[in-house]
């Protein structure tokens, strides 16, 4: 049965391309004119129009990072920053054009919505093409809509007060880029005390060759509320660079809980320069579950600011870097409140010349009395042409804290492979099983169908063994 699952997985599941007939594609490059055009296209309120131009100015002033994977292959003059599909956003899959609908059908989104999701947002290139939330969830007062509607809707003031406040455009060059050209994404508001029993999901599909996708996700989980949000993404592979510079801002209010799960499977020509940040208030809980499998280059470090007393965060992540991939991932924790706790559990796998880097920072401010932080990271090298690095930093400003860190790096144990082979399992399959076991701490944190997808991705990556 396991073997059949491996064979059923087909790269064409993600790597198929749609025709762009009828789409609107802006010219390549990044200029004030292009930013103005995007703003006009989106019918921005004035503050957003000004915000975009200010972000562009900051973008032009900031340098590219000098510390991560090289991004020389990314030429912003060749990136198309806005591609609008040939449809407006719909609330019914039957109204979505067939080709786009079929794309999401292949990716299993409508089926997942019917079976196990409270709401779905589906973005195709620069715009949402579908957005819907279950009636019973909406009746609880949960708002789940596209970002553009949120800018002018009932929560417009809240959006203005929070948009890119956690991730200001000055944060780094690609945050500034996002501020200038963002398009699409979702806004979620969960009212006080509301517990959303099943997850919401946004799925981002970038079909356009040489284009960028810059969706913005803003989630506010109000006091005592509870939400699980799932983010998925994929793209077909092109022979030119594509760019993803999304931004996720999460507000976890007093006593609230938010789980944010991501299975990222961008194509291997993608530069994934994404920024995610959460602010957690008193007694709040933030949980990140992250699987990074795709993209050519990734810079991805979900950041959690534990501002309130007793705030808590857990990060569970896995990164699988295969041929042609340089994935620089990890997490950042900032402890400000008293009795705050954070836990990082990271796994990375390098294979077929892939480069995987675990990078993190733990900052415990002076105010974070009795803070506790624990980091556990493990890296697996599957051959001697790959690379795996671990670069964790800790900065502690108070004696009244306990910080622990453990990391290890190594290869698959020959004894374990031999043991499995002695029970009739072929070597390649034995190795795949061991890698899946290595990733088990991540997959068990995901809903079943996503855990299956993740395991299939691992098996797919291991097929070349």
């Amino acid at each position, binding site marked *: 049965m396991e073997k059949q699952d491996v064979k059923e997985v087909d790269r064409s599941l993600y790597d198929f391309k749609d025709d762009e007939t009828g789409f609107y594609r802006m010219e390549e490059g990044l200029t004030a004119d292009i930013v103005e055009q995007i703003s006009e296209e989106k019918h921005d309120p004035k503050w957003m129009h000004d915000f975009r131009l200010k972000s562009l100015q900051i973008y032009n002033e900031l340098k590219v*990072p*000098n*510390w*991560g*994977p*090289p991004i020389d292959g990314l030429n912003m003059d060749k990136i198309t920053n806005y591609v609008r599909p040939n449809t407006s956003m719909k609330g019914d899959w039957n109204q979505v054009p067939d080709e786009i609908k079929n794309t999401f059908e292949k990716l299993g989104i409508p089926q997942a919505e019917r079976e196990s999701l409270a709401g779905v947002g589906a973005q195709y290139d620069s715009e949402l093409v579908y957005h819907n939330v279950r009636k019973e969830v909406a009746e609880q007062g949960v708002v789940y809509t596209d970002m553009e509607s949120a800018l002018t809707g009932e929560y417009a003031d809240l959006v203005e007060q929070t948009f890119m406040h956690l991730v200001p455009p000055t944060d780094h060059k690609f945050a500034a880029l996002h501020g200038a050209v963002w398009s699409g994404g979702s806004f979620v508001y969960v009212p006080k005390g509301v517990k959303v029993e099943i997850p919401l999901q946004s799925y981002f599909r970038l079909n356009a060759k040489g284009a960028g996708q810059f969706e913005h996700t803003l989630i506010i989980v109000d006091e005592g509320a509870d939400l699980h949000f799932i983010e998925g993404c994929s793209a077909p592979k092109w022979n030119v660079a594509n760019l993803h510079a999304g931004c996720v801002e999460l507000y976890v209010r007093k006593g609230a809980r938010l789980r944010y799960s991501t299975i990222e499977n961008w194509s291997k020509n993608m530069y994934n320069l994404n920024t995610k940040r959460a602010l957690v208030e008193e007694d709040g809980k933030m949980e990140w579950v992250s699987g990074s499998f795709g993209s050519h280059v990734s810079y991805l470090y979900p950041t959690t600011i534990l501002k309130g007393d007793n705030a808590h965060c857990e990060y569970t992540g896995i990164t699988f870097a295969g041929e042609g991939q*340089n994935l620089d991932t990890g997490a950042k924790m900032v402890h400000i409140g008293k009795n705050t706790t954070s836990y990082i559990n990271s796994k990375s796998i390098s294979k077929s010349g892939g*480069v995987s*880097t675990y*990078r993190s*920072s733990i900052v415990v401010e*002076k105010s974070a009395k009795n803070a506790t932080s624990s980091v556990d990271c493990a*890296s697996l*090298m*599957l*051959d*001697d042409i*790959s*690379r*795996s*690095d*671990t*670069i*964790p*930093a*800790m*900065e*502690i*400003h*108070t*004696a*009244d*804290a*306990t*910080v*622990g*860190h*453990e*990391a*290890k*790096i*190594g*290869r698959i144990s020959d004894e374990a492979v031999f043991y499995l082979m002695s029970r009739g399992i072929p070597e390649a399959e034995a190795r795949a099983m061991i890698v899946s076991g290595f990733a088990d701490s991540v997959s068990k944190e995901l809903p079943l169908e996503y855990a299956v997808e993740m395991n299939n991705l691992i098996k797919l990556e291991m097929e070349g063994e």
Partner: protein
Amino acid sequence: MSETLKIAHIPSLTWNRLGVNETLVEGDLALTGDVDTRFETLPDGVTSRTLSPEEAKAFLAEHAPKEAPEAVVAGKVPIYHPQTFGTGLGADFDAYLAQGVKEVTLLETADNLTLTEPIRWDIECREGNHVAGSELIHVGRNSSLTLILCVHSDEKASGVFGNSTKVILEDGATLTLAKVQMLGSGFTDFEDTGAALKDNAHLDVIQLSLGGKASYLGCQSELNGKGSTMEAHTGYIAGRDQTVDVNYNTIQRGQKTDCQMHFDGVLDHNGQKTFRGTIDFRKGAKGSTGDEQENVLLLSEDPLNRTLPIILCEEEDVEGRHGASIGRLEDDMLFYLATRGISERQAQEIMVRARLSAITRLIPDETLQIDIRDFIEDAFRKKTLS
């Protein structure tokens, strides 16, 4: 004259805002002379002579591992700090030291020589000294040597002391290198080490940084030969108004190499410490292992502790590990000691002594061990520590 030094670069950068990619040292650092590095008596089989800086450079170039700059750290934005012979504080420190060092001492042993007694070199710094020393240590095949370098001054003295030790260990050679710093409260201290190890060579580094206003400790060990090994035990105190900055980097190129690095420190009052420790497994280091552990005891409300333990790996058949434990004394231990009539302050003192004593005991010189213990007691008495 004020100048700025950029030292202690890490081989793979991280976020600049953390301030750990390198260390900037500013102030009146100008060197005015070198220290006298002549050894009064040396055991049979050990020789000492002086080299000009040019001769020393040529000697080192002969023994330095050959490496293309592209191989420094693959997969990252390339950073280059080319240095003839790698050390922990780096090329800028070499250039800085050249201001004051007019001759380099070369200490060599014959092959197949086993010395049971350590060679000890004491440097007494005086108020206002801005001095530096540089020595090359070349241990012959299957020989073993213990070298103790101890620098000290009056407790209130100020000045600058810089020292560089570059080590070449031939096949089967063993060096125990102990460096102890007990300078006065106004001194800035630079202690740099670089080592290249051939087949089955072994290096023990024991380092204690106890005094001074600011201490910069660097050590780069290159395990080039098959079966070469390195072990480090480093301890420090960063108490009132003290800064300690550590950069240890072990590059493992040979097959079946091993490095074990242990760091134990105490931060008190507004003491600041930055620790960077790198294990760098290069392609070909099959069957190698590496481990680094850091334990930091925080005693006060105002310390600043930065820790960056790095593992870089481009070889499959290796095992690397690092761990860090940073915090105060655990409540259950304090409670246990309190039930036996020991106050929190007394408990802290016991733990500080215990941590540093474990390293002190590794130095094979009982007189020096007593001096170190006295220095630590003085730190308590003068309230450098609580």
